[in-house]
């Protein structure tokens, strides 16, 4: 049974991995493997591929542990960035998209009303897990919050979010851009 994330010393585990202690990687895997697989699975939506990515992530964590610098960020954040980046690269490479440049997207959306989406319900039960970012998410309109969560949790691209929300692409891009700025402001 994994310890709570507050009780497990992720930094010590990474430092031990960097020192070549295989048991440390195994402890880290037992602690975080199911959560990592859950995060990767939401993005790639295929369990075999998700397990391949967690495999690759663990190998990367092992080989690159020495490059982790505790002065620059948390050990747990580093571990998740390794796994999420592998997952995102996999889906972005596989689901190549025709991209519409921002100006075209804005022109296409010029007729669209933004009001229609303001009453949208939350697509995620985010309140319990959101931690410090929770109050800042709360300040966003639900539809913008959904954009951020569909991107981060589901790994959806701009155009996939636009399709999911049936909202214009340029609008979705603008919502995400402004929401990121608002979150940064709120968390600073």
């Amino acid at each position, binding site marked *: 049974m994994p310890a709570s994330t507050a009780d497990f010393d992720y930094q010590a585990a990474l430092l031990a991995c960097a020192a070549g202690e295989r048991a440390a990687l195994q402890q880290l895997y037992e602690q975080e493997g199911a959560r990592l697989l859950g995060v990767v699975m939401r993005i790639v939506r295929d369990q075999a*591929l998700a397990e391949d990515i967690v*495999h690759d992530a663990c190998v990367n964590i092992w080989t690159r542990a020495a490059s982790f610098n505790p002065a620059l960020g948390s050990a747990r954040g580093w571990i998740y960035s390794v796994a999420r980046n592998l997952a995102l690269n996999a889906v972005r490479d*596989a689901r190549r998209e025709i991209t519409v440049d921002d100006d075209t997207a804005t022109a296409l959306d010029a007729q669209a009303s933004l009001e229609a989406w303001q009453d949208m319900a939350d697509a995620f039960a985010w309140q319990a897990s959101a931690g410090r970012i929770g109050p800042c998410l709360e300040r966003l309109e639900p539809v913008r919050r959904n954009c951020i969560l569909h991107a*981060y949790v589901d790994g959806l691209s701009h155009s996939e979010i636009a399709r999911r929300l049936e909202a214009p692409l340029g609008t979705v891009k603008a919502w995400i851009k402004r929401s990121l700025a608002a979150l940064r402001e709120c968390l600073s």
Partner: protein
Amino acid sequence: MSPAAHRAIPPETHELAGEYVLGTLSAAARREVEARLDNDAVLRAAVLAWEERLLPLAGLADPLSPSPRLWQRIERSLNARPQATTPRATNWWRGWDTLALWRSLAAGGLATAALLAVVLAGRLAEAPPATRFMVVLVAPDDRAPGWVVQASSPQRVELIPLATIEVPADKTLQFWTKADDWKAPVSLGLVTPGRSLSVPLDALPALQPNQLFELTLEPRGGSPIGKPTGPVRFIGRAVKVM
């Protein structure tokens, strides 16, 4: 990073880093950010800050128990890894026949391989039915796929870029191949980043499964000694496709 240094991050860097960590950038834009991260401390700081900010959202995905064999697979891959780092010595190409580099590529590359199967399937659908060999050339350090080699006949290969890469002004990329029973690699010519290259293999034996292909960084005009002298930028082996 100090608060003062954080304030020095320009808004557009925050924006790019935010979209990168959020995951909304295209494949090409993601690669560009990743290529910049090694040398761009400001962008790196912005990315790290976003990773910390957004990390709590990872808790929204329900945990999923891995199959019992996953840890065994990971252990096997770690056991197969070489102790030494990737060979970079002058005569590094002598190491082509050692398994170490290949094991290290394979160990970290399962997902890459799975993803490439998707890319290849897509490409095969467009390729002429005669395509018989495929090679995916990946970067040795992060295994990012950079090029595909496609052979529509045993006597001609086409090198197709998958990503944009940068080459220093005084250097050039050179394309090499070597089958298992050859003594040394043979040059297939110089390569322009981002451009396809079609190479006749008339003077060479027919392509073989497992034949090595790679791109090395050489002085402008190509290797002066007719053999690779610089670091491997991309490497892969030929796979026969049905």
